[in-house]
């Protein structure tokens, strides 16, 4: 019976088409994403160490009460709103209807549990997160969706502090240990992706959490592959082994674009700068032109200003970083909250700089050692040589010295250098203002990166006042004013904010690079077709 044969053949053909179409249709809506990352995930404990390595990858599984947007401003996360009840009391309203991956509802108890776990339970070597919660005196829960946090002193930026703390589900008895989280138990959070499997330091597999409270996630599953070498990451992206690769070296961008891959970038929330030894009368490595020891020239503001004027920062950003850098005049790139719009990078003025040096009594210039790490930050050792060329034009002969970062850091703490290359990054500009520019003070926890022992009392006062203000435009304005005041004294020589570069293949339409340098699947939008 030919007609029946034809019919069954048609049916078979139709079925075959349906079978082949169905997965195609499904993949178009729920594709897997493979990310090659430099971040080596070493633990599944979200409170273990405050490093991008952990927070970047674990932010798929766990969420925070407050998120940080691309200007570093706080945005609602698991908390929908917050307000200050008194200078030492904050109330957070929690999101309703949120469920953990194991089905249990998210309530105020989980917030209490997470904060107490970081504050009271975890002991060194775990560290970093304690800083954000050590000022918290008590956490109370008036109702299951409200949390009141009481601090021991004024805490105008508590919401910002909470952008660092991941929320874990509470345990009926005691606290979960790090070993427990790393071994048998699956990490359970409220995030858009569920944990599937991992190999420490190598692979992390995640699958979509269908009951996620927020917008539906774009990818059905996500695989993170740790590829530490930049060249290997670039190669994996070029050959299509991964869809996204983070921390692409600027020199590889052109090659990737030639192969039809796309690149997104943003100024990192950080800066690299030169720091001067201001504390000592006679730092090592500085001599007069005839090789005799001289008094510390960096104590004179005019010398620091002259060196700033004689540094071609545009060259560093355009040529050494190949355009993937922004010449810097302050600690964070302008546009991020708490930065100044008035501070500008001037073109080098060698004649003006020479005049200033002469006024300061160094008309013949001097010899100085300029130290830095090799290969720790983009363009570090090349910058030192370029600066040596710049400064030679105002009579200062520079001996650039580079060393592996560990050696450099040790020698810097030993006080072996007169001028050196440094860097600072963080979740808010206040962190770097405190660490790099505020006077060293162990009680206040300021000046931890102020290796040159710079002191400026009026700046210290302004900074303390600005930090005490409630988050908002006024506080940002005060921070900007304090920055302008201190930078007019040339305490450091800001060089550049290097750009974070992420490359992606055809599957990804765009990737929103975050200034904090996180690498997540949530930042990747699938391409339209």
């Amino acid at each position, binding site marked *: 019976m030919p007609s029946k044969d034809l019919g069954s053949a048609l049916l078979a053909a139709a079925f075959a088409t349906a079978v082949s179409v169905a997965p195609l249709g499904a993949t178009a809506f729920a594709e897997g994403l493979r990310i090659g990352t430099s971040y080596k995930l070493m633990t599944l404990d979200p409170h273990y160490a405050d490093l991008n390595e952990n927070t970047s990858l674990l932010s798929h599984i766990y969420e925070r009460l407050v998120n940080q947007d691309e200007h570093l401003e706080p945005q609602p996360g698991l908390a929908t709103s917050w307000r200050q009840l008194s200078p030492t009391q904050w109330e957070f309203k929690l999101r309703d209807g949120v469920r953990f991956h194991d089905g249990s509802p998210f309530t105020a108890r989980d917030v209490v549990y997470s904060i107490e776990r970081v504050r009271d339970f975890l002991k060194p070597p775990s560290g970093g997160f304690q800083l954000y919660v050590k000022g918290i005196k008590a956490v109370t829960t008036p109702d299951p969706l409200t949390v009141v946090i009481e601090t021991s002193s004024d805490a105008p930026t508590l919401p910002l502090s909470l952008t660092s703390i991941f929320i874990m589900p509470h345990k009926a008895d005691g606290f979960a240990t790090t070993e427990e989280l790393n071994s048998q138990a699956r990490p359970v959070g409220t995030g858009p992706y569920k944990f599937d499997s991992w190999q420490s330091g190598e692979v992390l597999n995640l699958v979509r959490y269908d009951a996620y409270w927020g917008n539906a996630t774009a990818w059905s599953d996500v695989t993170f592959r740790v590829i530490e070498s930049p060249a290997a990451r670039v190669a994996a992206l070029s050959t299509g082994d991964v869809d996204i690769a983070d921390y692409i*070296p600027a*020199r*590889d961008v*052109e*090659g990737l674009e030639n192969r039809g891959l796309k690149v997104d970038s943003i100024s990192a929330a950080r800066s690299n700068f030169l720091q001067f030894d201001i504390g000592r009368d006679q730092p090592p490595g500085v001599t007069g032109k005839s090789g005799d020891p001289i008094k510390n020239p960096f104590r004179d503001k005019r010398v620091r200003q002259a060196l700033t004027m004689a540094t*071609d920062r545009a*060259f560093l950003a355009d*040529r*050494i970083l190949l355009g993937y850098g922004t010449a810097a005049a302050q600690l964070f790139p302008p546009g991020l909250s708490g930065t100044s719009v008035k501070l500008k990078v001037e073109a080098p003025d060698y004649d003006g700089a020479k005049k200033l040096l002469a006024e300061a009594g160094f008309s013949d210039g001097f010899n100085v050692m300029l130290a830095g790490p*090799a*290969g720790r930050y983009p363009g570090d*050792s*090349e910058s*030192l*040589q*370029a600066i*040596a*060329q*710049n*400064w*030679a*034009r105002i009579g200062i*002969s*520079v*001996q*650039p*010295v*580079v*060393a*592996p970062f560990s050696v450099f850091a040790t020698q810097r703490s030993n006080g072996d250098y007169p001028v050196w290359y440094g860097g600072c990054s963080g979740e808010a500009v206040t962190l770097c203002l405190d660490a790099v520019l505020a006077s060293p003070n162990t009680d206040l926890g300021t000046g931890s990166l102020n290796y040159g022992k710079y002191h400026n009392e009026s700046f210290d006062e302004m900074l303390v006042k600005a930090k005490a203000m409630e988050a908002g435009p006024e506080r940002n304005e005060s921070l900007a004013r304090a920055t302008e005041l201190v930078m007019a004294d040339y305490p450091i020589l800001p060089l550049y904010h290097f750009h974070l570069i992420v490359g992606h293949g055809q599957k990804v339409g765009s990737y929103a690079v975050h200034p904090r340098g996180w690498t997540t699947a949530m930042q990747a939008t699938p391409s339209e077709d």
Partner: protein
Amino acid sequence: MKVETIRALWKRPTRKSVSLSKLLLATYILLALVAPIIAPQNPHDPLQIYAWEASSPPLAMGGGGYTYLLGTDGLGRDIVSTILYGLRISLVVSITSTAIAALIGVAAGVSAAYFGKWVDVVIMRIVDLQLSLPTILVALIAIVTLGPGIDRIILAIIIVQWAVYARIARGVALSEISKSYLDAARLQRLPTRRVIFRHLLPNSIAPAITLVPIELGHAVALEATLSFLGLGVPIDKPSLGSTVASGFQYLLTGQYWISLFPGLALFGLIASINFVGEDVRRLLDPRNRSI
């Protein structure tokens, strides 16, 4: 025999390739000597460098009024000048270190053979220990403990190389000691110093001399390796090796000239030293005396 060694070295070479390599090596040394005169730019003087002309391709016209024949590197240094000045550093480092290593090594080897007993045991065990470790590892440990700088590199290469000479010199000296002319010298009750320096040393030195050019090539390569790894010469005074290293990162962007030309220069230098070394070895080999 001492006179014979020197006479053998003066003999004219007969093979063409050998003359070519000698010519090349002579050119290298000459270029290194006159580098400050012929180089269009002093790449060690920051004032002569036009930073904004960084990464210019070969044959680009420069702001200093001369053409960058081989282009400029990522910091605006003329590649021709960088090669010429780098050559000086590479040659100074390798010749100095090889000469000192040979002196120390031969002295240690001959002493071990002559005095024997515990002197021999101590020296030769140190030599064994050192030769059992990979060269680059010993050099790396030396540089990391001594710190960077040209003098430290020379010291590191000496530490690596002296053991090779010591072992060879001891072997030869041991066979010389059993010969009758040395017995004669000792029976005349000549002072120990005179026996060693006038009789034993000159007769044990020939094999060590054949080793010198070979080790010289190794020294150039070792300095280049250390500099390539960032543990060598200061960054503002690049040798051939560190120039290749600094250009390495630009290779993928198509700026081949920064690494390629210094790399070719380095290759030619090591090759010519090795060929000349082979020639010296051939001339001093007793089995080839008839040539």
